[in-house]
């Protein structure tokens, strides 16, 4: 801690001093609860136990916590070896390293041999802000969903994180958790009911549908409120499962609302938008459709909130894209 008084300036992005602001990084504590009930859960991180709050787990289960230092590839293969020995390892690091640096380890050591490792990839998308592209991950959905046998989920808040951790603990094969930086405001007031491969309808609507992932769920909710004033009734789907994808919900949204906007903190190529486009095209449905996200570019330097606003990943930005889609 670098603060003397203990008062946290909400403007800070310092990972240590702003920990109390990172209220949605709850998996360290949740896994500690789960590990109270079963002895096969272990947690690994790569010199990030403070940043990702796996320290909450380490304090309660020090004998089942392994900090491997800055050696992410080693961590992923180690986790696979633990899974092959009957454990359920949760391996956590920044999404830029989990999904990109370690892509081949996820494929070869987890997905191919069907190892039940859970990869907790935090600070996904452009949430690292001014740390720059080395620390951004706008390709990891595309990479992980192309791996046969990989389940890909994206909890949008603390309650979805808790719900998905518990719902997937015994899922066969690996699960890639795409997580934010921890400041995501709660969308759900309690852990939502999770059905494998199903989106959650967080807002009913009949004029258009936003299928959103991660931080975009909360922003889509704000957009829905703004559009309500214009008489546009927006459906909002939380794409908490990116693989398997909820084909039924996509087709229903297409039929029932006639317009679909996907929103993701990811390149529009190969991610949620690409996945939904595949379903719509194969379904032969005529629907107004657009992909909203990072448009095949590397993000500018800015604080995270500024970046989200700049790339239209906030309520106003999504509202504008829905208006364009319906125009």
């Amino acid at each position, binding site marked *: 801690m670098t603060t003397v008084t203990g008062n946290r300036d909400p403007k800070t992005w310092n990972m240590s001093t702003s920990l109390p602001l990172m209220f949605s990084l709850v998996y360290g504590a949740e896994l500690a609860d789960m590990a109270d009930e079963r002895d096969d859960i*272990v947690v690994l991180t790569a010199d990030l136990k403070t940043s990702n709050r796996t320290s909450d787990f380490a304090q309660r289960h020090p*004998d*089942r916590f*392994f900090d*491997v*230092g800055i*050696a992410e*590839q*080693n*961590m*992923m*293969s*180690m*986790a*696979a*070896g*633990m*899974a*092959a*020995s*009957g*454990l359920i*390892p949760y391996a956590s690091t920044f999404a830029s390293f989990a999904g990109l640096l370690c892509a*081949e*380890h996820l494929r*070869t*050591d987890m997905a*191919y*041999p*069907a190892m039940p490792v859970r990869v907790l990839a935090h600070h996904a998308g452009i949430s690292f802000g001014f740390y720059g592209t080395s620390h951004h991950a706008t390709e990891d959905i595309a990479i992980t969903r192309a791996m046969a046998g990989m389940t890909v989920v994206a909890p949008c808040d603390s309650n979805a994180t808790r719900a998905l951790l518990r719902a997937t603990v015994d899922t066969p094969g690996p699960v890639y958790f795409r997580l934010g930086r921890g400041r995501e405001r709660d969308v759900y007031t309690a852990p939502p009911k999770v059905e494998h491969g199903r989106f959650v309808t967080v807002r009913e609507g009949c004029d258009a549908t936003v299928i959103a992932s991660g931080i975009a769920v909360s922003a889509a909710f704000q957009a829905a409120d703004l559009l309500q004033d214009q008489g546009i009734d927006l459906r909002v789907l939380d794409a908490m499962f990116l693989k398997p994808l909820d084909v039924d919900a996509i087709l229903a949204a297409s039929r029932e609302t006639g317009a679909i906007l996907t929103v993701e903190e990811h390149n529009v190529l190969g991610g949620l938008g690409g996945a939904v486009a595949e379903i719509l095209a194969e379904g032969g449905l005529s629907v107004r459709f657009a992909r909203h996200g990072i448009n095949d570019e590397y993000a500018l330097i800015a604080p995270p909130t500024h970046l989200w606003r700049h790339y239209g990943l906030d309520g106003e930005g999504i509202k504008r894209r829905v208006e364009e889609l319906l125009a």
Partner: protein
Amino acid sequence: MPDTILERSRPATADELKWRADWIRLKTIELVAVAGSGHYTSVFSCAELFAALYYRELRLAPHDPTWPDRDRFLLGKGHAAIGLYPVLADLGYFPAEWLETYSRLGSPLGDHPDMRKVPGIDFSSGSIGHNLSVGVGMALAARVQRRDYRTFVMTGDAELNEGQVWEAAMAASHFRLGNLVAIIDRNQMGLDGYTENVMAVEPIAGKWEAFGWRVMSIEGHDVTAICEAFDSLPATDSEQPTCIVALTRKGAGVSFMDLALDWHLGFLGPVDREDAEVEITQRMAGYESRIKEFAS
């Protein structure tokens, strides 16, 4: 508990293990003939190590391949799996008929081993440099679960070029894994030639020592030296991992392939194949006569 357990340090004479190593070479030649191409020489360098591991050292339960207390063997140099398949079939992990399907459409047996298809393979491999990390995970899992199995990981010498090996080496000594053994098949060559010309790996022993490992350098074609090294392994609840640097020769056992630059991957024509098989079987006959003499 499985019905039959093969315990550690089973009785096996040097001649029996030498015979077995050459049998592995012979079987490898047969399997490559099915595929039309294969890594003969990468198996030949570690044939004695395979023989000593599977016919003497490892605690195994071939009829219960996932028995949690078995010793693990990971083949980091996965391209040598062709030498392991005949051994696993012989020990009863799967029917010997599978060998005839090697590399054919839908076969469980490919160039690199797949743990989901081949009973007895403790982890899939093929991407060089991963398996020591996997072994660190298995050795740590033994600690968490309070089991006394030992994890062996065989890596190639050129595999030491991979950075991840050293991440794993660092982690193994940090986590005090006395239940982990790395075996370096120091066969002197990678695909492009001698390691010391392509990307030097020496001093190997010094590097592992610097990473906190207990290091033994042995003559890797000497079955007696291999067995002595295994006999001197520390207890599994000890705190320092062991690295066995096995000095071997890529292609050892067939004179025209021994340290031959163009034999990393290859295919023996009929004349060469016969020459190789005659050389091996003549040696095996010598071991057989001594084994019989000893038995009578």
